[in-house]
């Protein structure tokens, strides 16, 4: 049979999804369930004086109103145990849960939630990073010192700073480099929050039975949900079972628990099945958006264009609670030196509490704005030096064997130069658009990224079913990317010598499958795929042992092909896997194989930084993006007319799926670059519905030209590296550089709205007029 890996096989959940048969989290329900709705704080900061539910409780069909008075006092959190199930005395962001209404119908729950009277005494709102860092800023968490780190080991934090990371191992060398520099370039950049805008709002359905919580949810990381519920409710994790369903998009926003703990809590209190669904506005208000941030860069340059030293200071908005953000506070350390040699580096990352909704992961996390800042700054450095932007990049590009800021050696970093070369073949830099045409200003930009594949652990149990199909038990999740429905499925099919449709994957279930680190950081195909290969090896050996008797052959002479076990080198057909499965059932028992894998941490320098909770960047992949834009000088409208991606993928398990990830990731990046913007005024989100939050639509988006580089990664299944996360990363950088090139003016703030572009153009013209005057 033809190989399955490397083929554009159809995704195995495709038919269920095009027929409407696929049951997503919001679709799941059972007869007799109750409906819950959260009452959320309408203000960003205040003291909660009273919750008056007397009117609400009179509404027909209302069963209970639950508040902090009913709930355990355990605090929960991914990194820091900061948060109570319900705000008890203080509210810290608009949307923070204050009470839960449980009713017979959705309508009764909604009416009751509206009828609850909250008495909240307003307190000053610490609405942004700078306000939180002011000397006289009120503390968002006066009790911050009492919060326990989940890992047991604390990290540097104080006052309104939830995490601080500093890499400054050679301060004297750093100062010396700046003292000796021919040129010093300084820049400041900023980025807003970006809403993940998955189309399926968050939901959960929970049951409590015999001391056990069973929670149905469409989630990227079921084991994280299990652990969070256990923390909030003060039970051991195995008292919680999380069952997965089809996920209507997540992009990182469905990595931490959201509604699940409330459904579980209500199910226990009422001893009934309880369902809860977010409406779109509460989903937006409480979703852990990509954080807003400020990035400052300063570089010491030699006259001929070497980077002698570089400083990066990054201030990140944590919102009112931390989620996984303390992990991500160390990202600036990784981003600074992973693409360009930085001379002597200095990095400061600060994660800052504010009275806003907690921020969190969105595909590419802070790398989107960090690479935007680094790559805009690279353009500015080249301009100040009078050197071509691309040549300046190539001169300072890291090379295979270079150690980066954390001391990790990137063994295959020469792929970056290859990616620049491959882009050059189809979009020669010397032929880029430089002049205006049709009244439009034209420009080009380039940006490069090194990114990791999340190393988190995963496991797979494979079983040979008696009909010859292969069952896959894993808690790896299919978030839509195809990592399970194509990637892992095709890897198993290839290893077992069967077709994709003969691979049957169980939906995630934390009671059935081993721990899995969730669909994050492009890890599923790489890590779960590798675990699947380990399991396949064991299962194959057991199959050969049974088949050897039937074929009167030695197990070592057998192979799997076309759904059969056959003797190697012999053309005649063997015996069907179904026969082996059925035979085993009556002889040695059913055949299974198990595999577990976590990417080993590469060597690094533990002294490279303080506060670095995520010290390495395993299984790197390399990326260069190239963008051409046209800017209307009268309206500020930006059209991205050409977009080229060169991406290292190791091995494309499914080229059509890889393309979908790149096209989709670039599109999210274009939204980030050009329109998407959660604006916050006094802690209050201004964009509260999809009507006002502008997302990329079909007429906006060019077809991305894609160059796949395939240097197999030794540990990856068939060489595969992570694919799905990185395509979003360089987009704001490449497009920002292209716009700045087109208009001849600095672009420093994401998104690049028509108004901002016009202002930059206007300022540049005023400036050049002023400069021309004596």
């Amino acid at each position, binding site marked *: 049979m033809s190989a399955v890996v490397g083929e554009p096989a159809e995704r195995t959940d495709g038919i269920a999804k095009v027929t409407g048969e696929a049951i997503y989290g919001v679709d799941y329900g059972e007869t007799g369930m109750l409906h819950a709705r959260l009452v959320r704080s309408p203000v960003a900061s205040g003291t909660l004086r009273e919750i008056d539910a007397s009117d609400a409780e009179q509404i027909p069909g209302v069963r209970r109103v639950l508040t902090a008075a009913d709930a355990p006092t355990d605090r929960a959190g991914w990194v820091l145990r900061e948060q109570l199930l319900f705000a008890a005395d203080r509210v810290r962001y608009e949307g923070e849960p204050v009470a839960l209404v449980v009713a017979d119908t959705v309508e009764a729950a909604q009416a009751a939630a509206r009828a609850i009277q909250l008495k909240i005494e307003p307190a000053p709102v610490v609405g942004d990073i700078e306000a939180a860092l002011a000397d006289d800023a009120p503390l968002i968490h006066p009790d911050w010192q009492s919060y326990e780190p989940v890992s047991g080991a604390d990290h540097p934090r104080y006052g309104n700073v939830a995490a601080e990371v500093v890499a400054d191992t050679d301060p004297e060398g750093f100062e010396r480099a700046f003292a000796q520099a021919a040129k010093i370039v300084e820049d400041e950049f900023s980025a807003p929050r970006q809403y993940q805008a998955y189309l399926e709002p968050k939901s959960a359905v929970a049951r409590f039975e015999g001391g056990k919580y069973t929670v149905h949810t469409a989630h990227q990381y079921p084991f994280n949900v299990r652990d969070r519920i256990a923390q909030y409710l003060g039970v051991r994790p195995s008292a919680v079972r999380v069952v997965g369903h089809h996920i209507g998009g997540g992009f990182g926003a469905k990595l931490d628990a959201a509604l699940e703990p409330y459904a579980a809590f209500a199910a226990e209190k009422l001893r009934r099945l309880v369902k809860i669904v977010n409406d779109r506005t509460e989903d937006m208000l409480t979703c852990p958006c990509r954080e807003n941030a400020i990035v400052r860069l300063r570089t010491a340059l030699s006259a001929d264009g070497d980077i002698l030293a570089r400083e990066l200071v990054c201030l990140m908005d944590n919102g009112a609670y931390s989620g996984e953000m303390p992990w991500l506070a160390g990202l600036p350390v990784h981003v600074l030196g992973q693409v360009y040699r930085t001379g002597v580096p200095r990095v400061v990352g600060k994660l800052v509490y504010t009275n806003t909704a907690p921020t969190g992961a969105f595909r590419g996390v802070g790398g989107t704005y960090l690479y935007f800042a680094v790559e805009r700054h690279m353009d500015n450095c080249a301009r100040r030096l009078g050197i071509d932007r691309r040549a300046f990049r190539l001169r300072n590009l890291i090379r295979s064997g270079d150690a980066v800021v954390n001391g990790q050696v990137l063994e295959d970093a020469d792929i970056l130069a290859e990616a620049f070369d491959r882009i050059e073949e189809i979009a020669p830099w010397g032929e880029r658009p430089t002049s205006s045409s049709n009244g439009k200003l034209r420009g080009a930009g380039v940006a490069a990224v090194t990114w990791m594949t999340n190393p988190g652990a995963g496991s797979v149990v494979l079983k040979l079913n008696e009909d010859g199909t292969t069952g896959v038990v894993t808690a790896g999740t299919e978030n839509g990317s195809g990592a399970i429905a194509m990637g892992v499925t095709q890897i198993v099919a290839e290893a077992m010598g069967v077709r994709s449709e003969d691979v049957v994957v169980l939906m995630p279930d934390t009671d059935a499958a081993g721990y899995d680190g969730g669909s994050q950081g492009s890890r599923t195909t790489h890590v779960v795929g590798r675990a699947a290969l380990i399991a396949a090896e064991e299962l194959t050996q057991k199959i050969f042992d049974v088949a050897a008797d039937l074929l009167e052959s030695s197990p070592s002479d057998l192979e799997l092909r076309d759904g059969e076990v056959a003797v190697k080198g012999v053309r005649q057909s063997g015996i069907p896997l179904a026969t082996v499965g059925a035979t085993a059932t009556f002889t040695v028992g059913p055949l299974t194989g198990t595999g577990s894998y976590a990417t080993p941490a590469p060597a690094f320098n533990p002294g490279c930084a303080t506060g670095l909770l995520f010290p390495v960047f395993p299984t790197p992949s390399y990326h260069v993006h190239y963008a051409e834009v046209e800017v209307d000088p009268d309206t500020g409208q930006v059209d991205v007319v050409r977009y080229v991606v060169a991406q290292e993928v190791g091995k494309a398990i499914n080229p*059509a799926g890889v393309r979908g990830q790149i*096209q989709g990731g670039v599109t999210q990046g274009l939204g980030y670059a050009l329109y998407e913007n959660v604006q916050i005024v006094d802690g209050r989100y201004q964009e509260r519905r999809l009507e006002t939050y502008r997302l990329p639509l079909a007429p906006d988006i060019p077809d991305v030209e894609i160059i796949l580089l395939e240097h197999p990664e030794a540990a990856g299944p068939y060489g595969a590296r992570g694919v799905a996360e990185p395509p979003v990363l360089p987009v704001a950088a490449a497009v920002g550089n292209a716009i700045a090139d087109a208009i001849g003016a600095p672009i420093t703030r994401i998104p690049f709205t028509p108004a901002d572009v016009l202002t930059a153009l206007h300022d540049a013209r005023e400036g050049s007029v002023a400069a021309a005057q004596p």
Partner: protein
Amino acid sequence: MELHLTVNGDPHTLDASPAETLLGVLRDRLGLTGTKEGCSEGECGACTVLVDGAAVDSCLLLAHAVNGAEIVTVEGLRDGDGALSSLQSAFVKAGGVQCGFCTPGFLMTLTAFLEENPAPSEDEIRTAIAGNICRCTGYSQIVESVQFVIGGTK
């Protein structure tokens, strides 16, 4: 109030309140959960169904406003023998589906569109789906799914 609808060829008579949306009736009363609720304000297009052949956002439509109408949902796109429609089939083959939550809405919008315009240009396809949000695919493979259909292959 009595409500009469024909949904995917089956006649239904229900007692529905004046406030119920068509989406609510389809999902909660008839159990047709293929039609999705993404935003409840007509922005995302995930709830698109055909009402007497026209693609509309069912979240904005009161059920009684379409009393007596013929409704087609994603569950009604298969032909009489249960085979996928050429558009459904193309979405699977050409990579038009990722998370799939927007897919029913795209299928309904495009089914109506192709009835009106059986040989659209790429620009016409992109304009036709400008009222449907897909957060996963970046649209190219959705556009190609349509081109796959009008190219005559299934």
